[in-house]
């Protein structure tokens, strides 16, 4: 028994180090900007999905407005950096504070109620923000968006190349993942798993389920805000379409495919679904027409993925990994 656990730990450690090395080393294998760009997007989505994974996979709530938090972070950071001349890190802090506050204001009233009011409230919030992004022209630039947003920089250190932004985004993604992994293993994490099992049972054990759900939602909103502050500066251009309901739904697809009670599953799902419209970055020699076909059908792929996962494998990739890891059916 002991030996088996040790072996699993060794395998996990080796696998983990290999993945980290592969992620960090990508810029050494390819210097093609396009490929680095695509994987930088994947890293941004990983940051958002880490928060969504806590919300969906642990606290059992779904948000249909996370693209709006992503957008608030992006616009806030772009505004204070380009208009007020703040340093990038100031933009990051403003983005996190704003989205955390917004998340709190949205979550407090809707999570007091039973049922799925949070999904509705986030949907409405997302649509209101879409109107604001389009109409508040002095701050957001209206439908045309904002361009010429400077690269992220920390003091003298400017992340002004494709590989530098790639490293920055994935380093931040790694930090958010570590934070989330810590949270999941803490007392709050155990409480979250308990309330996913049975809210009534968790309440009976003295767990403040509303308080925990609100906190998880605030964390997930601020992760999306942080991702926005990275995205705006790495890409240099933002417009309302990047933060639409459509993107919120895509994020839900990633969280659902990623599965419950798992962080690794959602990360894999986020990378996979981000790559779909950019398949030519990972499949060398993919023909132009094949790529166009994939892009033509990507909505259907996302939608059918959501439906199929909810019907046939509600545990998602995370549940699948647990089954492989333990060698038996994954039950709590």
């Amino acid at each position: 028994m002991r030996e088996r656990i040790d072996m699993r730990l060794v395998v996990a450690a080796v696998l983990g180090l290999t993945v980290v090395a592969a992620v960090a080393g990508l810029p050494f294998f390819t210097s093609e900007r396009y490929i680095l760009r695509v994987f930088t997007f994947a890293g941004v989505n990983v940051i958002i999905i880490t928060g969504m994974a806590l919300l969906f996979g642990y606290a059992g709530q779904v948000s249909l407005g996370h693209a709006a938090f992503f957008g608030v972070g992006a616009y806030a950071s772009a505004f204070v950096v380009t208009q007020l001349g703040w340093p990038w890190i100031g933009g990051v802090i403003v983005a996190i504070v704003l989205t955390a506050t917004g998340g709190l204001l949205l979550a407090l009233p809707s999570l007091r109620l039973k049922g799925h009011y949070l999904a509705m409230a986030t949907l409405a919030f997302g649509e209101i923000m879409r109107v604001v992004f389009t109409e508040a022209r002095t701050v957001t630039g209206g439908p045309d968006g904002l361009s010429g947003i400077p690269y992220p920089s920390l003091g003298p250190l400017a992340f002004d190349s494709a590989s530098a932004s790639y490293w920055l985004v994935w380093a931040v993604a790694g930090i958010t993942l570590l934070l989330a992994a810590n949270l999941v293993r803490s007392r709050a994490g155990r409480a979250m798993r308990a309330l996913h099992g049975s809210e009534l049972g968790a309440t009976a054990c003295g767990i403040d389920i509303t308080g925990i759900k609100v906190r998880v939602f605030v964390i997930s909103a601020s992760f999306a805000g942080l991702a926005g502050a990275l995205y705006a500066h790495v890409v240099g251009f933002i417009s309302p379409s990047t933060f639409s309901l459509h993107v919120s739904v895509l994020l839900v697809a990633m969280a659902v495919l990623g599965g419950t009670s798992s962080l690794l599953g959602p990360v894999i799902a986020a990378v996979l679904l981000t790559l779909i419209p950019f398949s030519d970055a990972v499949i060398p020699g993919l023909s132009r027409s094949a790529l166009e076909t994939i892009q033509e059908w990507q909505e259907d792929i996302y939608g059918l993925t959501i439906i199929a996962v909810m019907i046939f494998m509600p545990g998602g990739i995370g549940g699948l990994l647990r089954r492989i890891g333990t060698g038996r059916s994954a039950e709590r």
Partner: protein
Amino acid sequence: MGGVELLQFALAGLKNGAIYALVALGFTIVYASTGVINFAQGEFYMLGGMLSVWAYADLGLPLPLAAVVGVMTTAVVGAVFELLAIRPRKDGNPLALIIITVGGSMVLSSSARHLFGPLERALPSFSGTGTVSILGAALEIQSIWILGLTALAVASLWYLYNRTSLGRAMRACAVDRNAARLVGIDTRRVVTVSFLLAAALGALAGLAVTPLTQTAFNVGPSVGIKGFAAAILGGLGNPIAAVAGGLVLGMLESMSIAFISSTYKDAIALIVLLSVLFWRPQGLFGRSGREKV
């Protein structure tokens, strides 16, 4: 602002309110039988318009027949969606079902784009493009069609709920699904019928509005959100409240354009939605307390 102008805005509000009422009825019917918010409801509205245009312009059917084909095909799509995507999730977990309808919404709008293309499509008015004058305010004849069809739909629904055994079974399910099953009601059939009816009502709204606004594969979500706001405003699960909520929302939007500005008119429904969720989640006409608090 003069009285005629105000009346003009009120009539526009009534027309939009009737559309929201039909979409809200779809939300409420599905919610009553499943406890689920059907995010694909807006897509039924889109399909009603798109399929009618297809039957009229591509198949060359006469307009009344094309309208019937559009609404009935959408109703069948609604029932098939329930059979293929909702029923297989046997535990009926509401969060899972809600997420499935989100996926369904994507698939339905994308399919419409594959089948009918990405462009806006139009339908001629049902009986001429003229207007009638009501106390000096102009009302399009098509708007009278919209109001009439909504009234007809509400009356038929009232008959179904109060005079037929299927309607009584649906009401029983809305009160308590398990008790309904215990007295021998086929609750699964009720759920399928709910989706069929919800799709037909959404399609009717989409069909009636297409001569005025045109339609396209991507019109579903925005109308869906407004219909949902109307259903929440009235009180989810109650058909009369859904209709009232739709009319109130239409009026609120129209009056906000009249007295504030049209820039944020699309935000009105959303602000109403959030306000109701936060302060009166049972809706204007719902009873408080039941299962929600």
